[in-house]
């Protein structure tokens, strides 16, 4: 009896496996490493939803990219490096590009993807010096890097103080990981240049425990607090800042610390909190209308559809748009719709998102135009400051898009990337 059941079970599973193998994929593959579980899920979910909705919209509206449907298998990483590696290995065959959405996984995948010939697009995160396309052939981090971000935040503070911040105290509250440590060197270099004092306050993963951090801030009373946080850490930090009555307009987060999920738990206390951003929030863009029409109204929204138009959802749209645009460019360059991962990389290196092109894609005034070249994989380096209005529950852009301190940043990028090139014995390209 038992043996019979076992046999039936085995036959069933063999049939299932063979049907799985038959499910051949001929489309353009954009694997997604997402995290809808774990301590970083509050930020991971809206972002992943943006991605999926954009891909679905392109498939429904245009029938894919140049007639090739987008295939976007999801792999849940939980923000864990080891799982990220498994997901990468599983999906790397014929994959166009990976978007790890985690600085740790990006560092992990840079050498692997370079060896395998797969592009990595870390939109405004990951290894900053990957902006140097001469060394990092397969890695793109446009439109803006952490070091740009750090210097833009300092520039904003400079503007508010009429250009003089000598003797002021700036604290950096950061996720104690590769991600959070990225801006430190830039901020230290800028501290020498502008004469401010830098206070470093690491917060350990996952970031729920910040009592000591904010006690220190209450004692040392820094004039400004910058934050490199992600996931639960953002919410806790903003709540803690509110509870010690730190002036919110002097609290500036990086673009990953400025979504609705981060400020809403603090209620009115979060009013006036600022963050950097490289894309606009809201739903007043053509792309949102198309998504509404082709995806949401058909009941095919990713997740529960409740994140439509939030900061991170919109960022997901932006990231997906750049990835799709790279495929379009690649198809144009190589004159074929069936592009290979190598062709796709060529396309990525020639992405030129002008204001006109952004308008065509339905992203008018959504983000500043930028361009990727062989030397520069880091894009424009433009970001703006947005401020949270807790009464209206919305983000308002309060500055123009501005550049960072490119003298400082470019020098640091050259230093770091040449160090990497020497370690890994990489010859510079683009000469």
């Amino acid at each position, binding site marked *: 009896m038992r043996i019979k059941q076992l046999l039936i079970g085995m036959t069933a599973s063999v049939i299932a496996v063979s049907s799985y193998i038959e499910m051949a994929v001929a489309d353009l593959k954009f694997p997604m490493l997402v995290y809808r579980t774990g301590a970083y899920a509050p930020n991971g979910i809206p972002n992943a939803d943006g991605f999926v909705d954009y891909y679905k919209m392109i498939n429904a509206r245009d029938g894919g990219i140049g007639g090739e449907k987008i295939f976007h298998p999801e792999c849940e990483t939980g923000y864990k490096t080891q799982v990220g590696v498994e997901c990468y290995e*599983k999906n*790397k065959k014929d994959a166009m590009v990976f978007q790890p959405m985690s600085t740790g996984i990006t560092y992990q995948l840079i050498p692997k993807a370079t060896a395998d010939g797969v592009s990595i697009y870390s939109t405004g995160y990951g290894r900053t010096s990957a902006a140097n396309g001469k060394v990092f052939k397969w890695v793109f981090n446009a439109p803006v890097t952490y070091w740009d971000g750090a210097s833009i935040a300092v520039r904003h503070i400079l503007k508010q103080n009429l250009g003089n911040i000598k003797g002021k105290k700036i604290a950096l509250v950061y996720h104690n*990981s590769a991600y959070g440590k990225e801006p430190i060197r830039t901020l230290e270099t800028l501290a020498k240049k502008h004469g401010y004092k830098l206070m470093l306050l690491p917060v350990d993963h996952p970031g729920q425990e910040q009592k000591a951090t904010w006690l220190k801030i209450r004692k040392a009373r820094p004039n400004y607090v910058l934050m490199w946080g992600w996931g639960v850490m953002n919410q806790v930090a903003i709540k803690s800042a509110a509870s010690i009555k730190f002036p919110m307009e002097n609290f500036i987060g990086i673009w990953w610390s400025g979504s609705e999920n981060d400020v809403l738990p603090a209620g009115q206390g979060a009013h006036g909190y600022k963050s950097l951003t490289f894309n606009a929030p809201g739903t007043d863009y053509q792309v949102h209308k198309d998504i509404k029409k082709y995806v949401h109204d058909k009941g095919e929204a990713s997740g529960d559809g409740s994140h439509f138009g939030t900061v991170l959802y919109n960022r997901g749209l932006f990231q997906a748009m750049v990835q799709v645009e790279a495929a379009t460019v690649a198809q144009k360059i190589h004159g074929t719709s069936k592009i290979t991962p190598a062709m796709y990389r060529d396309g990525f290196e020639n992405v030129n998102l002008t204001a006109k092109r952004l308008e065509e894609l339905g992203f008018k005034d959504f983000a500043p135009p930028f361009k990727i070249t062989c030397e520069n994989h880091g894009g424009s380096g433009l970001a703006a400051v947005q401020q949270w209005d807790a009464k209206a529950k919305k983000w308002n852009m309060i500055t123009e898009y501005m550049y960072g301190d490119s003298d400082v940043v470019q020098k640091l990028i050259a230093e770091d990337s040449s160090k990497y090139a020497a370690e890994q014995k990489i010859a510079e390209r683009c000469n």
Partner: protein
Amino acid sequence: MIYKETGQYKSSYKSDHAIFPLLQDKIAFSTLMFIAFLIIPFVINSYWEKAILVPFLIFSLAAIGLNILTGYCGQVSLGTGGFMAVGAFSTYKIMTYFPDMNIMIIILISGLITAAVGIIFGLPSLRIKGFYLAVATLASQFFLVWLFNKVPWFYNYSDTGQITVSERTMFGIPVTGAEAPSYATYLFCLVLVVVLSFAAKNLIRSKMGRSWMAIRDMDIAAEIIGVPPLKTKLSAFAISSFYIGVAGALYFAVFLGAIEVTESFDIMTISFPVLFMIIIGGLGSMLGSFLGAAFVVTLPIGLKFLMVDMVGLSAVTAKHFEITIWGLLMIVFLIVEPHGLARLWSIAKEKLRRWPFPY
């Protein structure tokens, strides 16, 4: 019928003390080694390497290490992640200081360094036992991870605190770095695991292993009959840490290639899973270490394959199921078979011996 030992006479002490006294076991083991050394290297691809086989081998080694300490010597430890970090960072530092040194030697030296660290953190075990010792080793976990994150010397003052492996070769074939072929990394780990497992198995059968077990079963009685607790406990800590250190070195150099200490050696990524491995596999069993490692490494991947690729659930739903199933299995195991998979195997062997005529 299958496990019939009738007719297999032992005519010398040597054959009586063999690791695999039964002919059936010898055949099974030789077949396994044949497959592992001569078939898998030719069919392995990077997915099997990076997602299943290499992590399985590395975690087996870590599980053996912890099993020596916890399963054989009875000293509960939650510091596995910290000790693996010692192995990883030693490898990194030696690699950067001595660029020409052979990777195998680097990894073994890293193991020795970890053993030394293990002895230091094993000192409290002379005074405290059980839960209290678990807490003391937990302190080592947090302290070591904090140390490697705090002191920039350990990561050569890199901006991000990440350490990255550079390419090293064995017989001209790269075994570390992104260019290393799948079969090379696999064989490299396999050789270390096989050699070290045999060493561990024989250590356990030696005087040292017997004194560990004496301490485990009743330390006061052991002391009275002349087992020195200081030497015994510290040797268990040293040897256990050596294995865990080698596992950590492989985890960094061969498996991941780039590591961030807070994330990769977190208590939830290493220490608890390795403890689960030996609990699920079987405390005080070599086979259990392997079975436990295989179970913990492949279960999430297997469940994901089943739920996402075959049934077609979304990745996130599958993940939620996975977490639930994982928790349930832990409880079921502890209730139904607290001695782990190794015990299940020995029951199966008993049954196979009488099959098909049970009485």
